[in-house]
């Protein structure tokens, strides 16, 4: 097992709670904005005769996949079709787990890009740990649908990167819904979006005369927050101790005032919310790793980690994933050292956790092609990257970074029925998703498209309907 595996961390958290740590009281608070997602009833599915990349590192040629009751039930040769199954003849086609993008702003920066819907950065203060991205998500965003056509079944929606601490992320299933709660991945932990480097100091700083204006100001800004969160946890523990002691002390005990910012930060320090950290430069990632030790929290992944290749061993040793683009570089100074081998290098080291991410409503439509580019670059310098390995960059590894790898990201019995049938080798520019299943429900069928667009916004738009008169 890889070090600092999220499941291991989750188990530790459970143990801590069982040990009666007072601070666990708040953690037990049920989500006040609970998921209402429930997959529709769907017939079982037998996908037959495909090249199957399971996401566990295995490849099976001429293999079958069975989905029943929303779950993967079998992967192998010559499987029986369950009664009433939809049978998909997939000879010559490829099957993979549904793709997972750990970095998206779909719904919070939706299209059309108009001011009325621009809800991704609460850029009014450098620390907004109190905000939750889910409260900005516009489920109508047509970009959910184009992402689905690219095989995306699960995605993390993050606040933007203007702030040192931007707020909580949310993990969504890519299903049509009127409310985001009906997309919310049941039980997936939220993340905390933090940002290194240029963005916070550019958005604040000299222009507004608000700290930070430098990278050292950035780090001082984060540390001050963690110190406050530690104090909050101490106050909370003192209160719980009094309550537990009973008697007069218990009667007089007052809980610390409820504070959304500190609740978030405390949940991070308690290990309930992993940090998803926007960080380009190798040296800054190393600083963040030290800071995570200083205060005892877990960074799940560095996002946009353009220089991850420079510290690939360090990241692997610390159990932190790197979420990367195949070839974005140079648009700002901290992206100047981008190389196309980044993903392949991060993947090549022992226990490396490479993720292909998008941060783009265009890129999310073709994460498979991004991986294709990275494969080619890796192979060109002698790194063996078979398709069954590369698919992990888009499935198992992002699931791991989001803390949902026990439930999705691989084609293993018991996992969610999140499956893509591709018309070609998925790492080709010509590959298209033919069918996309989410929890066993056929959500996208390229050959038999819906008559009407799924997004309310696209409904009845003359421009999308046909040729102009």
């Amino acid at each position, binding site marked *: 097992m890889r070090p600092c595996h999220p499941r291991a961390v989750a188990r530790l958290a459970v143990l801590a709670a069982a040990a009666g740590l007072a601070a666990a009281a708040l953690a037990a608070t049920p989500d006040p904005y609970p998921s209402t997602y429930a997959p529709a009833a769907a017939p079982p599915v037998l996908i037959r005769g495909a090249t199957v990349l399971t996401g566990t590192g295995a490849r099976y040629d001429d293999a079958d996949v069975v989905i029943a009751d929303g779950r993967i039930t079998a992967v192998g040769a010559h499987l029986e079709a369950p009664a009433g199954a939809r049978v998909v003849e997939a000879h010559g086609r490829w099957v993979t787990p549904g793709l997972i993008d750990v970095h998206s702003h779909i719904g919070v920066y939706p*299209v*059309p*890009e*108009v001011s009325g819907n621009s809800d991704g950065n609460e850029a009014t203060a450098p620390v907004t740990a109190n905000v939750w991205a889910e409260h900005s998500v516009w489920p109508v965003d*047509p*970009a959910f649908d*184009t992402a689905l056509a690219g095989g995306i079944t699960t995605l993390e929606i993050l606040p933007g990167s203007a702030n040192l601490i931007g707020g909580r992320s949310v993990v969504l299933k890519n299903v049509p819904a009127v409310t985001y709660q009906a997309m919310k991945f049941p039980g997936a932990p939220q993340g905390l979006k933090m940002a290194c480097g*240029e963005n916070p100091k*550019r958005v604040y700083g000299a222009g507004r005369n608000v700290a930070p204006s430098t990278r050292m100001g950035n780090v001082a800004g984060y540390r001050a927050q963690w110190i406050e969160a530690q104090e909050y946890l101490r106050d909370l523990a003192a209160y719980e101790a009094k309550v537990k002691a009973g008697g007069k002390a218990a009667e007089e005990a007052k809980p610390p005032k409820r504070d959304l910012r500190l609740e978030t930060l405390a949940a991070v320090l308690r290990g309930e919310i992993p940090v998803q950290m926007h960080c380009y430069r190798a040296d800054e990632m190393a600083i963040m790793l030290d800071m995570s030790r200083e205060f005892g929290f877990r960074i799940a992944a560095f996002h946009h980690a353009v220089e991850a*290749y*420079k*510290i*690939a*061993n*360090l990241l692997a*040793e610390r159990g932190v994933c790197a979420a990367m683009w195949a*070839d*974005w*570089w*140079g*648009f*700002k*100074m901290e992206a*100047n*050292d*981008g*190389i*196309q*081998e980044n993903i392949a*290098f991060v993947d*090549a*080291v*022992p226990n490396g956790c490479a993720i292909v991410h998008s941060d783009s*409503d*265009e890129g999310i*439509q*073709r994460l498979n*092609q991004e991986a*294709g*580019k990275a*494969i*080619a*670059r890796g192979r*060109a*310098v002698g790194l063996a990257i078979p398709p069954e390995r590369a698919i992990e960059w888009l499935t198992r590894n992002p699931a791991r970074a989001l803390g949902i790898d026990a439930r999705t990201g691989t084609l293993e019995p018991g996992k969610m029925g999140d499956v893509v049938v591709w018309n070609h080798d998925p*790492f*080709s*520019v*010509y*590959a*298209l998703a033919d069918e996309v299943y989410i929890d066993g429900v056929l959500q996208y069928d390229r050959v038999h498209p819906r008559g009407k667009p799924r997004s309310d*916004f*696209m409904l009845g*738009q003359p*421009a*999308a309907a*046909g*040729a*102009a008169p």
Partner: protein
Amino acid sequence: MSARRMLGLVLVLVAATPAAAAAPTAVLLRNGVIHTEAAHGTVAGGSVLIVDGRVTAVGRDLVAPPGAEVIDLKGRPVTPALFGGIGQAGVAEIELEATTRDGTLKLGQMRPEFDPSLAFNPDSVAVAVARVEGIGFALLAPGAEPGSKGAPGSSVIAGLASIVRFDGRRPRPPVALEVLVGEEGGALAGESRAAAYMLLAQALEEARSPAPPGPAEQRLLTPAGRRALKALAAEQRPVLFRADRAADIRTAVEFAAREKLAAVIAGGAEAWRVAPLLARAQVPVVIDPLDDLPTGFDQVGATLENAARLDAAGVAVAFSLRGGAPHEMRKLRQAAGNAVAHGMAPAAALAALTRVPARIFRAAGEFGSIEPGRAANLVVWSGDPLEVTSLVDAEWLDGQRQSLRTRQTELRDRYLERIRAGTAR
């Protein structure tokens, strides 16, 4: 062309070259699939002979002259060096660093004489990074930005566009004018896209009148601007109208016809909806095949089938990534592959990266095809040139074999050692 005739031609060329005192350097690329984008079409099992940097023959069964370097392509494809689209490589080293940017004029004045190619830096790392991905030329066109916080923006006429060459040479002289209609034009024309045409018409009238009408303080153009605009219009050089909405494209095409301008549509997200009009008026389009979202209310009809539908309607289609990011040109090849995945013929997609843009921007004598008599501007690919897993194996620009090293390969090699040694920390 037979081998004998070809050899004869080689000898004539050598004899006619004053520098022929030195032995000619000849390279024969043999046994490949040669996409000539010219009269030869695609030659399977084909060869290209390059003598002293010039393509002297294309065909089957070419014979290497004595002393020639012979490269067996083993069936690999060869294409002309690719078009990088309309973009700002060479005038913006780091986009977010204003001190490194020269591609957008923000004087708040209409200056059709603005020529960003004077700022082109052939040593930009972004140019090298594009070059090693098979890109030989691009259209450098001015950027556009509305003013903000009291600072002036650009103008409805953004300025002059030039073909820039990624082989170290200077840009070609300006070839086109870029104007903004649609949403961008509206933002620069008193917040109405309708006013963009009003300002354009006034500027054209000023340029064409021997004595510009009206009092000097009401004029839009400087004398230099009048000369530049007048010459462009008179010489029927391309005028790039940046527009996406079907209605804006129609209005632009009609405006251009009225003003006798040679319109080219850049953007064109909804161009498929007016494809018959574009075909009839012979107006080419430069589109991003990846456009498929309503990024604004100008792109509601965007679709991945835009390229295929335009091509089927007989419209000349060239490709460019939206936004013209200086560092992303290498992605254009992938965009073209996606056009094929969504119905465009592979040959048409390759043409949209080579022959068609070279013709639209009057550079066909130099770029966009592999033809005898032309300087070698060509690329050997490891596989299908539109496939994301294919790489450049060899490249010639302006007759010179190109190094495939860049700052990025230097970084790669430095850190690959550490990856192999397990010391990347």
